C-alpha cells in the first residue's frame, strides 16, 4: 500500500513539473489577418492615455484590415525597464514601447529595436527631415537606420523660487539671465546664501540619487567634462575637467548650496516651496501653482560656457514583436506631423516645425511665452542629449559605488580614478 502511494506521488510530481515546463514554453504562431497591437509605456496619466487611445482608434478605423485593436499598457513597476524586462521575460512581448534615452544606444546596439526608417521615409507626408538631427541621432546607427522616434525632447532648465530668493535678500535671478553674470557660480552663491538665511534647500536636482548619478555628471559639460569619449570607448571621469567639476560640486554640498546626499532618498520637491533652485525639465511645471512666484530659465554657464542639455523618451518597435510591420505602420502614423502636434500637448516635440510658442504653450500652460522662447525654443536646436553609452547598464552600478565618496566629502581624484579603473575594461569592450 505504501509502495503504491509512493508511486502515485511520484507520478503526480512528474506530471506537475511536466505541465509547468510545457506552460512556460513556446510562443504564439504568427497571426494572419488584422492583428492586435500593444504598446508599453511608463505613464498612467489619464490625459496621456486618452490622447493615445484617440490616435489609436483613428488608426484602426483607417487600417482595420491590418490592425484590429491597439492597447496601451502602462508598466506599473516604479523602475520601468525592470518592469518591461520582467514582462518580456515572462513571454508577454509588447509590439511597441517607450524607451528612455539612457537605454537607447544599448538597445540599438543589442538589436532589441526594429529599424523603422523605411516605413517612416515612405509614409505620406511624414517629413523625416523635420525631425531635429540632434534629437534623432541617438536613435540611429551608423547606417542611418532609425530605431525610435524621440516623442519627448525636453531641455533641462533652472527653476527659481523667486519668493525664497527675495526673502534671503538675494538679487533677481531672471534679470541675470542672458548676462555674463549668469553662471553656475553666481547661482550657487545665491543658493548658499538663501540656505543660510532661510534654511530652505539651495539648489537640487529632483531626479538625483546616487544610483542616478548621471543627472549630476551631465552638468559637467559646462566645465568641458565628459564622462567618456565621443565614441564611448574611453573613460573621461579622471580627466582634469571632470575632477574640477566634481570638486566644485562637492564644495557646494559642503557650504550648503546643494543639500547633503542622504542615502537613496529623492531630494525635496520644488513644488514644496522649500527649494530655491531646481534643475528639471518642462514636466515639473505641471506640479506648480501660484503658491509661490517662480521662474523657468535656461541653464547657467560654466567655466567652458553655456552647454544646454535635453533628456529624451522615444517610442520604438521591439524586434521581438510578432507584428513588426504593422507596429511600424502605427508608429509612423502616431508620430506624423499632425499627431506629433497633438502629442506636443504633453511632450516637447523633436520636430522643428512644432518648435513655436503656440505649440509648446499647450505642454506648459504655466510658462510665459518669453520663458518658452528662452528656455525651450532657443535651446532645443543647439542642445546635446544627455551622455549615453551602449554599455551603460553594465557599468552604471560600478560608477555609483565609486562616486559615492564624492557626495560625502571624500577624495575626488581617488574616486574618479577608481571609476575609470572599474569601467575602462567594459568601455573598451
Amino acid at each position, binding site marked *: 500500500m505504501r509502495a503504491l502511494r509512493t508511486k502515485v506521488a511520484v507520478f503526480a510530481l512528474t506530471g506537475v513539473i511536466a505541465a509547468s515546463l510545457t506552460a512556460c514554453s513556446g510562443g504564439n504562431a504568427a497571426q494572419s489577418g488584422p492583428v492586435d497591437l500593444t504598446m508599453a509605456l511608463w505613464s498612467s496619466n489619464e490625459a496621456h492615455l486618452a490622447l493615445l487611445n484617440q490616435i489609436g482608434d483613428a488608426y484602426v478605423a483607417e487600417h482595420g484590415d491590418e490592425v484590429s485593436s491597439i492597447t496601451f499598457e502602462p508598466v506599473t513597476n516604479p523602475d520601468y525597464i525592470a518592469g518591461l524586462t520582467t514582462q518580456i*521575460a515572462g513571454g508577454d512581448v509588447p509590439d511597441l514601447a517607450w524607451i528612455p534615452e539612457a537605454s537607447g544606444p544599448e538597445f540599438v546596439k543589442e538589436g532589441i529595436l526594429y529599424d523603422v526608417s523605411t516605413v517612416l521615409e515612405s509614409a505620406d507626408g511624414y517629413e523625416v527631415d523635420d525631425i531635429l538631427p540632434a534629437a534623432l541621432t541617438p536613435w540611429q546607427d551608423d547606417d542611418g537606420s532609425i530605431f525610435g522616434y524621440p516623442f519627448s525632447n525636453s531641455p533641462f532648465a533652472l527653476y527659481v523660487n523667486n519668493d525664497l530668493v527675495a526673502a534671503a535678500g538675494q538679487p533677481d535671478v531672471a534679470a541675470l539671465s542672458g548676462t555674463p553674470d549668469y553662471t553656475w557660480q553666481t547661482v550657487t552663491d545665491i543658493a548658499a546664501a538663501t540656505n543660510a538665511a532661510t534654511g530652505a534647500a539651495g539648489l537640487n536636482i529632483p531626479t538625483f540619487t546616487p544610483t542616478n548619478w548621471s543627472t549630476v555628471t551631465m552638468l559637467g559639460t559646462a566645465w568641458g567634462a565628459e564622462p567618456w569619449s565621443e565614441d564611448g570607448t574611453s573613460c573621461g571621469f579622471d580627466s582634469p575637467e571632470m575632477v574640477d567639476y566634481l570638486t566644485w560640486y562637492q564644495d557646494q554640498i559642503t557650504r550648503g548650496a546643494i543639500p547633503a546626499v542622504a542615502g537613496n532618498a529623492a531630494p525635496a520637491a520644488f513644488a514644496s516651496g522649500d527649494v530655491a533652485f531646481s534643475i528639471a525639465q518642462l514636466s515639473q511645471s505641471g506640479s506648480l501653482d501660484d503658491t509661490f512666484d517662480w521662474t523657468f530659465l535656461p541653464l547657467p554657464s560654466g567655466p567652458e560656457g553655456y552647454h544646454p542639455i535635453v533628456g529624451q523618451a522615444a517610442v520604438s518597435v521591439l524586434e521581438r514583436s510578432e507584428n513588426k510591420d504593422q507596429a511600424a505602420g502605427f508608429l509612423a502614423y502616431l508620430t506624423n506631423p499632425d499627431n506629433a502636434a497633438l502629442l506636443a500637448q504633453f511632450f516637447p516635440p523633436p520636430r522643428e516645425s512644432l518648435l513655436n510658442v503656440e505649440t509648446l504653450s499647450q505642454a506648459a500652460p504655466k510658462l510665459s511665452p518669453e520663458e518658452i522662447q528662452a528656455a525651450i525654443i532657443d535651446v532645443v536646436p543647439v542642445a546635446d542629449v544627455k551622455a549615453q553609452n551602449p554599455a551603460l547598464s553594465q557599468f552604471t*552600478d560600478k560608477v555609483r559605488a565609486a562616486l559615492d565618496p564624492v557626495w560625502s566629502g571624500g577624495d575626488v581624484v581617488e574616486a574618479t580614478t577608481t571609476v575609470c579603473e572599474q569601467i575602462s575594461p567594459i568601455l573598451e569592450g
Partner: protein
Amino acid sequence: MAFVAPQLLGVIILGLVPFLFVIWYSLNEWRPLTGEMEFIGLANYEQLSSDPTFYASVAASLLFGVAILVFNLGIALSLAVLLNQRLRGITTFRTIFFSPVVVSVVAWSVTWGFLLAPNGGINGFLKLVGINGPNWLGDPSTALISVVAVQVFKGVGMNMVLFLAALQSVPEEMLEAAQLDGASRWRSFRSITVPMIAPTILLTSILTTIGSLEVFAPVQLLTGGGPGDSTNVLPFLLFRTAFVSQQFGYASAIGVVLFAIILGLTLLQWFTRRRWVHDEV
C-alpha cells in the same frame, strides 16, 4: 498524503519548479530583451569567483546577517523578559513592540529614511542635546548599521512574541526552587530559563538568519546599495544584475549561491544544536 497534497502542490508549483528553473538559468547566458539564451555551463559561476563586487556583497550580507541576528535576538529576549510580568496594561506594551511587524516594509523604510536624513528627526533630537549627528545613510561607517537598526526594529516584535511564549512555559516551581536555594536572578536566568527556552532560541536564530540574508526593500529604499558597496547585500546585487544589467543568467547564479549560503548556515545551526539544545523529544 491527501491532507498535505494541496499544500504540497503549492510548494512544488510556486517553490520547487521556479527554483529548478533558476538553477537552469544560471547555466545559461540569458538576455530577455533580445530573447537570446545560450547554454554556457558553469561560466557564470567562474565569473562570480573572480568578481570583486560579488565578494564585497557576500561580506556585506554576512555582516548584515550577524548584526541582525545578534541585535534582534538580544533585544527580543530582553523585551520578552521585561514584558513577562503580570502587570496591568502590560498587553499595551506588548502590542506597541509588536506593531512594527505588521507595518508595510515600504512605509517603514521611507519613514526611517526621513528620520535618518542629515536634517531629519534623529539628528534634530541629537542637536537638542548638543550632538552633531552624522549623515547616517550617506556615511560608509554608519550606513550598514543604520539599515540594520531599521530592520531590527521592524522584526524584533515577532521574536519577542515567540520568546514570551517560551518564557511562559518555563515552570515557575523550578525558578522558585532555585530562588530558595539562593540562586540570583541572573543565575536562574542563565542556568534554568535559557536552557528551557533553547528550542525557541534555535527556531528564532534559524528564521532570523534566513530573513536577514534575504533583506531587500530597506536597502533599495534607503541606500541603493551604497555608500560604495557597504550595503550592497546579495539580494540587492541580484536585483541590479538582473534588471539593470540585464544579465538574468548571472543573476540566477548569484541566487543559487545565496541559496547555498542560507542553506549552509541553516544546516550548521541545525546540526550543532545538540551541543546546546537539550530539551528535544
